[in-house]
């Protein structure tokens, strides 16, 4: 059907193999670092979003809506090209002395993902019946202690699957970092393709890696759901 000559040996050893492997490493590194920041930021936002103080609540809401309704690519470009005018000099100096492409990608991915994580955490907390809080309060726990001992432990349990899925989204979204020159997996696959004209092999290899990442995460979520959330259903 296609006039195409396959040559898988090109990507299974040598220079191009190493490029792809280093791409996988960068993708995993970028996703792992960003998910930590995204989680911390997301947790903070979820709490602010449910604050009793109106202005705080609205600021958190504005943040969430803004970052969820703008393309990630534009956010990456903003942090990479445009952030120097609004950041303090000290931060700019620090960023210029590190791997700036990588740092800008981490900042953009963390902030973008935190907005989605915050909503997941919030809906996790809201899914715990109000009576739980009322019972905890009437048993003498303060608001914070009720959150700490009663609400959060239950909310965390059901928030795990959406959070793990956010990590998967993040790993996929990290491919956009190639636009500012971060040499992650998609970048390397593109490199290999343009050096060898072996698009099938190069994109095929990257596709397999992405599928391994996404199917293992899907499998983990499935197992968690079966064993932790619905143990009675597991026969």
């Amino acid at each position: 059907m296609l006039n195409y000559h396959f040559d898988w040996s090109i990507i299974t050893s040598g220079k191009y193999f190493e490029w792809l492997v280093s791409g996988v490493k960068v993708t995993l590194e970028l996703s792992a670092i960003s998910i930590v920041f995204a989680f911390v930021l997301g947790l903070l936002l979820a709490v602010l979003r449910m604050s009793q103080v109106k202005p705080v609540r609205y600021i958190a809401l504005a943040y969430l809506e803004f970052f969820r309704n703008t393309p990630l690519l534009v956010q990456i470009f903003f942090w990479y090209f445009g952030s120097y005018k609004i950041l303090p000099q000290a931060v700019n100096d620090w960023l210029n002395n590190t791997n700036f492409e990588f740092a800008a990608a981490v900042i953009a991915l963390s902030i973008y993902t935190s907005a989605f994580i915050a909503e997941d955490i919030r809906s996790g907390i809201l899914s715990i019946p109000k009576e739980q809080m009322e019972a905890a309060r009437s048993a003498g726990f303060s608001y914070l202690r009720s959150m700490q001992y009663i609400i959060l432990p239950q909310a965390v349990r059901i928030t795990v699957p959406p959070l793990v899925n956010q990590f998967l989204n993040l790993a996929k979204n990290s491919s956009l970092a190639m636009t500012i020159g971060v040499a992650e997996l998609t970048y390397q696959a593109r490199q290999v393709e343009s050096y060898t004209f072996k698009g099938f092999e190069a994109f095929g290899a990257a596709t397999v890696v992405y599928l391994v990442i996404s199917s293992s995460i899907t499998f983990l979520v499935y197992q968690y759901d079966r064993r932790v959330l619905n143990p009675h259903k597991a026969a």
Partner: protein
Amino acid sequence: MEPFLDFHVIADNITYFMIGRYPNGPLGGFALTIWLAVVSCVLSLFGGLVLGLLSISRQRLIRIPVMVFINTVRGLPLLMVIFWMYFLLPLILGKTTPESETVIMGLTLFTSAYMSQIVRAGIEGIPKGQTEAALSTGLKPWQAMLYIVLPQGLRNMIPSFVNQFVSLIKDTSLAFIVGVSELTHVATQINNRTMAYPTEIFIFIAAVYFVICYAFTSLSRLLERKLAWNKSM
């Protein structure tokens, strides 16, 4: 360093941001962003409907390959799908395809996979009794699906479709990577030409995307409330 933002660069280039070189050249900028999103959305509505229906087929030989296809696409970054299209379309069609068509194909394939999940969930949300009743009145299975189940399911799917359209608008920014002159691409061009105003330029296009996406996000929430079935029914 100049501490204040200077938005003159936006005012000076506003036509270029909005419609590119049109009418003296091809349509570009924000107008092309919307065009790409609308065309891909219409195509992926069909794609999603077909894939969604096939993925709940009772024929294993149909269902399983379709599910594999859907989950493969969903497991990939959109960028990867666009690169596949960029590389495969000329091979399959035997001629070079314009970049904008490559992007529309990539967006359509990617979004169809996600839409199919909405369709699937929408159909599965309709009680089994509806199908049984339809069949017992003498309708054939495809008639029961087409006339009874799907119309009710579609109503529930509308808010999710609108959300998917918002994702599509955001995703069109990736057309930048293959050189389609939509809003993000135009912004980088102006940025390269003017050099000194990246902050202003990217804040501006972020705001443009935000306005249109937020409008549709709000519409989706409104529809979700308006279209919810009366619980007492």
